[in-house]
């Protein structure tokens, strides 16, 4: 029973960390139709910034997260203007190649500046101790990740479904030319949603560093994981991303706990099964 509980808690926390990173990718893929394989690269940049701020400069955890998000978004703006803007609406293969190229560049450049070692982001005392929740003690960091995930999911839902910006965004997605003609500044909408997606990647990269450690090949190692999660959930769907992250997080964590020698076997077996049954993902929209 204890094992089941700890697996469940770890799986939930891991799923939430995945969710924070992947939902940004889901947005860019579902709403802007860009297969952004460099998404993990931005999470990695954020991790490096946070690690530098918290460990080398001695700033607080919250400040480090804030700096990481702002820094990553600032870095992403010229990249979006110069590179991504040219591949909106291109065939998938073109987008995949371009974003793999960006990922390689980010990996190479990051290593040139920070070296090939693993970077840690020191947790503050309040997050590194266990908390007693009645039936079990849980690491406070796990709870923090879960809370972050839930806040992000709720916040995004509110933003897309209930605000003015959300209406413009959905209009742009459905028919960019018509939205443009009706006075929606689609370029601005795209730029803002891209910034939000990158900001979420940054948040997820820092918060989830306990599960997905920050190291030089981070962007490449988890690129596939992120892409898989998004396509299983259905690009652009928040509930889909939640379900996919929790399900695949659970499969992965359970597999690692009970049969560690099989590695990622169960994860990818589950992916093939799900994609065969739901070719558009759980909540993907028909094209």
């Amino acid at each position, binding site marked *: 029973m204890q094992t089941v509980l700890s697996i469940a808690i770890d799986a939930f926390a891991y799923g939430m960390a995945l969710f924070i990173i992947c939902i940004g990718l889901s947005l860019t893929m579902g709403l802007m139709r860009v297969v952004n394989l460099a998404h993990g690269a931005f999470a990695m940049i954020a991790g490096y910034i946070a690690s530098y701020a918290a460990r080398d400069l001695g700033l607080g955890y919250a400040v480090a997260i804030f700096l990481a998000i702002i820094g990553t978004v600032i870095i992403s703006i010229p990249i979006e203007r110069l590179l991504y803007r040219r591949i909106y609406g291109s065939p*998938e293969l073109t987008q995949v190649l371009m974003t*793999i*190229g960006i990922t*390689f*560049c980010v990996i*190479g450049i990051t290593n040139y500046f920070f070296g090939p070692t693993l970077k840690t982001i020191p947790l503050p005392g309040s997050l590194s101790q266990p908390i007693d929740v009645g039936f079990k003690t849980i690491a406070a960091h796990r709870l923090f990740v879960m809370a972050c995930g839930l806040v992000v999911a709720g916040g995004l839902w509110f933003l897309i479904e209930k605000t003015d910006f959300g209406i413009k965004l959905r209009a742009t997605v459905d028919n960019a030319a018509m939205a443009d003609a009706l006075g929606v500044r689609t370029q601005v909408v795209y730029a803002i949603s891209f910034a939000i997606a990158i900001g979420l990647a940054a948040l997820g990269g820092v918060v989830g560093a306990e599960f997905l450690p920050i190291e030089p090949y981070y962007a490449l190692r988890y690129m*596939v994981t992120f892409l898989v999660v998004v396509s299983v959930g259905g690009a652009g769907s928040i509930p889909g991303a939640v379900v996919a992250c929790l399900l695949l997080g659970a499969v992965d964590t359970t597999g690692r706990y009970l049969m560690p020698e099989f590695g990622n*076997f169960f994860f990818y077996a589950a992916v093939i099964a799900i994609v065969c049954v739901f070719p558009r993902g759980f909540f993907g929209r028909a094209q």
Partner: protein
Amino acid sequence: MSASTDRRWLRDVIGIALIIAAGLAGYWLFPDNLALLTRVIAAALLVLSIDLITGYCGVATLGQASLFGAGAYAAGIACVNGITEPVTLILIGAVAGSVAGLLMGTIMLRAHGLAQLVLSIAIVQLFHEAANKASAYTGGSDGLAGLMVSPLFGMFAFDLWGRTAYLFGLALLVLVFIILKFVVSSPFGMLCRGIKQDPIRIRAMGSFVFPVLLKMFVISGAVAGMGGALAAISTQVVGLDSVSFELSANALVMLVLGGLGSLYGALVGTVIFMGFEHFVSAINPFHWMTMVGALLIAVVLAAPGGLSGLLDRFSASGHRAKRGKA
């Protein structure tokens, strides 16, 4: 009509002669690097196989190494178990690759677009884990070592410098290339290109799309499997990296660099990519990554048809100037 067919024939004969000439030039110019050149040939077969399904059928894949690895492991296991005739080993690799291609095609063709790409990745990762797990047969992460291949035709032993392996590989590559030239210009090849451009219209014309694509997957698997078997024979080791996502992604990059939908492009891309990799990654592997990344971005932005597309554009610009913008 017949004049243009004649010209195409002439072009292909010249092209194949050029490939043989370049291969033999490599043999004379780099006698100390024949092992590397043989690896290039094995990779070229892999890239050709991706070209068949991505370039000619429009099915993007990031998991082609699973077919390459199937051929490599099949040949390796057969060799360890006493079948040491090199031509037989290549055939075993081809059969294993086409069986894997059949399996992969059956799964991948269920989905479209992004889901298809994700499936291809998931398949190569599954193959990787399976090869890792079945260590009794594959040697797991240590790799399958100790392949003792008997002399080719009972006469030419596989020497330490890799001369036999290289010439054998070159002959295999030229043979496969000629066969593929026939395949892609056959009615079947034309149908594949039609499917790439508009599958719905092809269906409306009364052709079945799925079996055609599946057939191409099997052919592509045979080519990739031969590449894997060649790699196994020449290096005498089969490692887990022959069924990795990285190899699949690199091979796709080589193809795109050379030009999708052109068999020559596949060869050119492979040679340039692996040549660069050999020199630059020896200096610093991270600089290599930055360079590949920059190269990819440059190709996507500046030369979407790859190097061969660029060449075509230059040679066709004269015609196009007369006819106006196509």
